[in-house]
């Protein structure tokens, strides 16, 4: 009964919310009103946009010494998550069978586990730092905590279901993924899609003003 609901209606609903939400958010970014910049252009905006998209991967020199943990743990988490999301054999198989119809190279089992451990390490340290540091605690909203916790639960349930033998554990993982998908477009998790346009926008603006960033 619950199993059918999780595998059936809720699964399709969460996918629909995820897809429509993302399209709506990105469209609203493109279509939305922008203040036109009336100043005289001092430089070209396109190279600035492209440069900033990549330059923001490198932490700012002045800040780096203060936010070592955030940099290290942040990279660990995001790289680990990326590896286990798109290169773990069960995930690739799932995407192949349900959506794409093709597959690609996958990590060996140990690689999958190491990626998960790296991602867990980063996420836990970042979450605890957010909670423990006076400043980040003040500037964090409920949404920030919720996004971290939901991501953690998705990863944890996936980790519980590693043997891929018990349907209860598979359902638990899928249910947490559904919650994650529904919550995704309405939260800061959207940065997975918006970080490129956001950086491009800033970069273009800076480029036009002749600022190197």
């Amino acid at each position, binding site marked *: 009964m619950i199993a059918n609901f999780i595998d059936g209606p809720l699964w399709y609903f969460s996918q629909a919310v995820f897809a429509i939400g993302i399209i709506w958010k990105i469209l609203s970014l493109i279509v939305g009103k922008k203040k036109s910049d009336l100043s005289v252009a001092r430089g070209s905006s396109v190279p600035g946009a492209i440069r900033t998209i990549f330059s923001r991967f490198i932490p700012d020199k002045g800040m780096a010494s203060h936010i070592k943990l955030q940099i290290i743990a942040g990279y660990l988490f995001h790289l680990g998550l990326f590896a286990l999301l798109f290169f773990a054999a069960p995930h690739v198989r799932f995407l192949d069978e349900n959506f794409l119809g093709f597959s690609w190279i996958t990590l060996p089992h140990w690689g999958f586990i190491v990626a998960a*451990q790296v991602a867990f*390490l980063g996420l*836990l340290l970042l979450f*605890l*730092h957010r909670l*423990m540091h006076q400043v980040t605690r003040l500037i964090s909203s409920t949404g920030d905590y919720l996004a971290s916790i939901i991501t953690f639960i998705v990863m944890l349930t996936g980790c*519980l279901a590693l043997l891929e*033998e*018990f349907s209860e*554990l598979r359902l638990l993982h899928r249910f947490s993924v559904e919650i994650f998908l529904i919550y995704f477009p309405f939260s800061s998790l959207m940065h997975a899609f918006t970080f490129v346009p956001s950086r491009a926008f800033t970069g273009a603006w800076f480029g036009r003003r002749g600022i190197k960033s």
Partner: protein
Amino acid sequence: MDALKRSSKTITSLNVNLSLLVCFIVIIFAMLSFSPVFAAEGKLGNSNTATHQLGVKSPATDLWRAVRNRDFGGSKGMSSTSQIKSLGANTFINVKGQEWRKFRQNWLLPYGGYFLVSVVGFLFFLYVVIKKVKIPNGRSGKSVSRLSTMQRVSHWFMVILIGFMALTGLLLLFGRLVAIPVLGLDGFAFVASASKESHNVFGPLVIVSLLLMLIYFIQHNWPAKGDIKWLFSLGGLLSKKHLKIGFFNAGEKLLFWFTIWLGVVLSITGLLLLFPYYEQTEAYTQLAIAIHAIAALLLIAIAFAHVWMVVTIEGTMDAMKDGNVDENWAKYHHSRWYEETTVANKALDVDAHVEEMSSSESRKEGVYQ
């Protein structure tokens, strides 16, 4: 040989039936076994038991005896091979398995269980009986900075990991006794599977948390001169004078070092268990499981004691919440540290004050000029 011929002649003259034949053979064989012809076989048989003397031993007897000897002694020179290439395939009978079973079923499960239950029960008893140690004179409202952000992050990181490892580990160890009667076989099966898989994934992270703990806390945990006195007076309970204690008291230092060393033991044995196919025999794995379980039970007991201490002594938790403790708490529990830190802080404060004054003056000057 003369004696032999004489005795045999008298007997062979009799009418032979089967039983007499057997008797005859026994006697003959007992005598012959002293002669050089059979001495060689006696060595081969590796024994002087009654079956040998009877001479009608089963041909498999030597085989099984040798198999056992190899497993017990190891130096008997028996080698066994198999066309199947897998771990332990060459071993005929692994008697260690039976020892491991005895250890686990008759020793670890009952006594480990009693140990854990009695520790938790005792701590609960203490919690009920002993009154909370209040901060003397109440909270002052002033706070003293005690722990840095990273110190708290590494502490809570370890709490999350060890808590999770303890929960999943205990489920695997005692689940059959405790959880199966409640959840049923099928209900417990997926819980146990989840426990096993996540225990394996989170295990190596414990090593990271141990390293973080070491990096951020070792500076406060070196033995100091008041520690022995603290231990002998049971944390100041038996001493009339109030003890002056630095950043950590001896109990806290013991907690730290127990956690680190038990953590190291758990990590090494745990890693051995994570890579079971890299060992030549299963003996190491069996030993590793035994050590892992004992160390884990000790660490869990210590963790419970730690929780009880924190709950009992008011104001201790503050340090791990936002890094600051109440001034009165610091004065009472860690007076020497309080004195040191306030002296340092005052010096800092004065510096900051002077700086502030001078900068504001210069600004004023700037304005007026």
